[in-house]
């Protein structure tokens, strides 16, 4: 499958990158590691006239401990860098655990955190070649008007399948978005639309530049549990991230967060999970309750392998296990 023709830009600064985005608004696509974008371009899911390779922007390749505390991660930081960061391992273990489950070592050397956050949503009816999609009459996300997964509706259910965003949601991460008018900073939770097709609340002339994690979020124990069929190179079929803060294994939980991925069009914080956990010592029962809450948030459909019913059951099990694992430290 040939890549269609495009013009490649390789800016060295955020400013020039954003200027190019503004200039070619709508016809241009950001390329970071390219591990998601390039296969999709071969399948003709995207045929941008211009491609903006931002890998020349050196300042986005750093993990930086901020003077006032907290952490800044440049959008171009690779998943391997996150895996190898001693600081992240010590302070934000959930992020490292999630990053380590992604794809394979080679893909993690290429893939970036920015790309993982902005990852396109996936669906068995969408991530296919042009010829294949012709045979199903296309779908609502690309070139068509029907959702094969939920044919009654007009909503796209393509599923968000990134592994690090649930961890980042737990950590209350914020992101910096650069546009022609300068930068703005929003909670990561506000980035996602909840719809498979529009997916990100980011304007066509904007790009993600940095991720911030507050210092107060360090020291949480964390766990990431991922449902997969194959031991490596497998997108999550369901994923659960959990962070827990307490003074000891059996001490009451002071704070906690639970987030899930790969079962909705966006990664989601599990509402109420913190309330269920705070003030109590974690045990099997509480963990099960959290599992139920997580399953209520999940909306798995036939976008992916295995059955939706099974994936929903697994959200329960994996959430329970992640809570127990995080509590055990």
């Amino acid at each position, binding site marked *: 499958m040939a890549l269609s023709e495009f013009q490649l830009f390789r800016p060295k600064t955020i400013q020039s990158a954003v200027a190019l985005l503004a200039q070619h608004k709508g016809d241009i696509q950001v390329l970071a590691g390219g591990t998601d974008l390039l296969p999709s371009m071969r399948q003709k899911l995207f045929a941008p006239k211009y491609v903006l390779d931002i890998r020349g922007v050196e300042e986005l390749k750093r993990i930086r401990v901020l003077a006032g505390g907290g952490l800044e991660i440049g959008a171009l930081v690779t998943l391997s860098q996150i895996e190898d960061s001693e600081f992240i391992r010590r302070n934000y273990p959930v992020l490292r655990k999630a990053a380590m489950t992604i794809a394979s070592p080679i893909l993690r050397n290429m893939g970036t955190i920015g790309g993982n956050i902005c990852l396109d949503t996936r669906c*068995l009816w969408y991530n296919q070649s042009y010829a294949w999609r012709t045979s199903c009459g296309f779908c609502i996300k690309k070139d068509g008007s029907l959702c*094969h997964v939920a*044919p009654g509706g007009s909503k796209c259910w393509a599923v968000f399948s990134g592994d690090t965003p649930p961890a980042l949601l737990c950590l209350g991460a914020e992101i910096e978005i650069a546009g022609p008018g300068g930068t703005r900073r929003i909670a990561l939770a506000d980035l996602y639309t909840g719809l498979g097709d529009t997916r990100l609340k980011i304007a066509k002339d904007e790009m993600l530049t940095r991720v911030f994690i507050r210092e107060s979020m360090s020291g949480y124990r964390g766990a990431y549990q991922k449902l997969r*069929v194959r031991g*490596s190179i497998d997108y999550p079929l369901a994923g659960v991230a959990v962070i827990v803060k307490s003074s000891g294994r059996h001490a009451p939980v002071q704070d906690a967060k639970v987030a899930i991925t790969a079962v909705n069009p966006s990664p989601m914080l599990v509402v109420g999970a913190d309330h269920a956990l705070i003030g109590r010592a974690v045990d099997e029962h509480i963990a099960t309750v959290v599992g139920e809450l997580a399953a209520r948030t999940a909306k798995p459909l036939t976008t992916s392998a295995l059955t939706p019913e*099974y994936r929903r059951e697994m959200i329960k099990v994996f959430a329970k296990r992640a809570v127990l694992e995080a509590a055990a430290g």
Partner: protein
Amino acid sequence: MQKEFSIIGKPVALVDAAQKTTGLGKYTDDLSLPGMLVGKILHSPYPHARIRKIDLTRARAVQGVVAIVTGQDAPTSYGILPIGHDEHALVVDKVRYVGDNIACVAATTEAAAENALELIDVEYELLPAWFDPEDSMKAESNLIHENKPHNIEKEYHHVFGDPERGLAEADYVAEARYMANEVTHAAMEPHSTLASFEFDPQTGKQGRLTVWSSTQVPYYLQHKLSLVLDMPMSQIRVIKPLVGGGFGGKSEVIPLEIIAAVAARAAKTPVKITYTREEVFWAHRGRPRTIIDLKTGVKNDGRITAVRARVVQDGGGYCSYGPVTILYSGALLGALYDIPNVQYDGYRVLTNKPACGAMRGHGTVNVRFAFESQLDEICAHLKLDAAAVRRKNLLKPPCVTVNGLRVLSYGLPECIEKVANASQWPVRRGRLGRGRGIGMACSHYVSGAANSIIKSDMPHSTVNIKIDRDGGVVVYTGASEIGQGSDTMTAQIVAEVLGCSMKRVKVIAADTDLTPIDLGSYSSRVTLMSGNAAQRAAEDVRKKIEQAAAKKLNCSQEELVFRGDLIWRRGAELENTGEQLRAQGRIEGQILRESVLQERKEQDARDHLSFEEAVVAAIDFSGTLTGTGSYAPPADARGGKFKGAGVGPSPAYSYSAQVAEVSVDEETGQVTVHKIWAAHDCGRALNPVAVEGQVVGSVWMGLGQALQEEMIWKDGLLMNPGLLEYRSPSSVESPEIETFIVESVDPEGPFGAKEAGEGSLAATIPAIANAIYDAVGIRLREAPFTPERVLAALRAQKSQKKVNMTEGVDPERPVSFREHGGSLCFRGKGPTRHPLDPAVREQSKAEQPSPVGGDD
């Protein structure tokens, strides 16, 4: 023959290993020729449709397009079997599966070719399509091939012994339906073909054709090209470069191989086509999904009295190897155990899906899964030990089975012994605690088919050898190295017979201009058949060397010893000086000046010759030094006379026994295989590392089919046509495998060797199924045992709240194949189509359809 071998039986590196690992070796897609174009194929978006019209006007106008060909450019049908010529490289009237081949664009760039594909206008008349094999068998109209009533490609009904009585005499009869979903080869190298015509120097017209192709069967390809292109075989040369795995997927002619030649003819310049991974899935020829209704009768002590099997295979849209597959499924019920009474009803059914064909363990795997599972169920029911019951039903070779298979060597008892001991079977089976278990299963396979596809008396393999004054041994063999080690095996055998070093031997293989006919690399035939031919060719040429050497050494031919690049008279003590002599011999042998030769002649008769000296002497003596050998299976190994008796008989059978150890996560249904003990009887291990590699590879491939690999269908649409979604195991979940080589030394094999590449696969799936049963007491009768199937069975066992996790199919009592969710998308499928399907919406634009279904 010497008792101790110098080359065979030693773990030698494969002769092409360095080429492959350094990237120097060339596979077909690495090749290019001046003026070469890229070929891209237009595939059908519909599962079943008549083609009314193909308009190429818009596509032809695309810049860079040189030629576009359609079915009209090659209207002759073909197929791998003489009884199954039902394919066209490019369809002429009908498409029969999503992915069927309609047209090919040859263009200067891939992008131009792909753009042109989108501009080919095809008018279809859509036909109702058949997706489920048991539905398809009921078809009265809209047949997939008009000459196949009820869409049945072939059916066979075999009765051996008296199964009726056998079942009546049984103390216990087990009966169940088993289902195995469809799997494909997933060879690393996608299919690729480069075709180029020469211009005839006399006429200036297109003359000879050369085709480089990733194939297991160069001669069949030459034959089918000749048929479809209407050219004499002598004008066609097929060359097989390095091949990155086949597993059966390249064991017949695949559409691109003919399309490339047809396109090159039209474009008047070389054309190369390399399939995308998706196209590889559409070309398929994998293992059909199979329904097995199995009944086994036993005495209380576990002795089998009768087996009755009804097998339905979902063969896809074309014949391919179908009749052979369905026959193997029945025939290989025999030759593993002693079963006195067998009834077999096999149906090969056509459906609107990509064609199935031969895949590693061809025909035997799914039925073996059913049989070995049922045997385990019987053991559980009668409280018998699974190893003991297998021992109770052993054959007593030499013998001929009830269905006419001749068995001479039989290492199965020793295989069972080895894995039972190593796994501590007697003390660990049933005693590992809930959640962990071990299971046993056995399997076997042919070492080549005793009867070739095309009935004839020709040898199945021929090997020629040429030795020249440089002392180099060049072996010409038609056998196709596809990664299994065929070239290495050939070199080893020749070197062993000639007593020369491996590096002296050059193997020229699989080039139809240079090498004699060999049927190809399939049905595990190469080591036995081509190996025998190589051995005979080497013995032939050795005889000529012996004659000259005996003269030189003043002794009889029988007294000569060939070993370590030296030839000496038996009794001469040469061991310690060997290295020195070899060095000397090399220099002398290669300097062919008269003075040196003269000098040698004047020397006294010696007690040894270097290999070169002997070769030079032999050439001086007889003019040329060549040898030839061929192999055809013996008449008494060719099986019975009944209809379908031709498939199953083999010169020799390999045997395998395995024990798998698994644990089951009862909350998730995930199965972890911790270890597999695999014993394989390969007759003699010519190259033990290669044998181990084949056994380990077979087990891992079986593991994939057991736990995670399956082609997921929705209305004939393959939902996972890629290696990301078609989940072959990665190294992470591939367990430790301890292999045991059993050497039963078969009288028919070269140095006693039998097959090693396929036989182990079939045991892995039931060994795992049986281990799961041992661990948690559930009996999975539908493969693969994916976590949702395992969990569904576990929940049923515990009578927990029922959640439909398996799309309505009970994995313990499967009835029919499932479809993966979503709306129905094909026109003409029938009345059950989803109202919001695009086709229906188009039809009823005026009426507003009411939204139905969906999860929203």
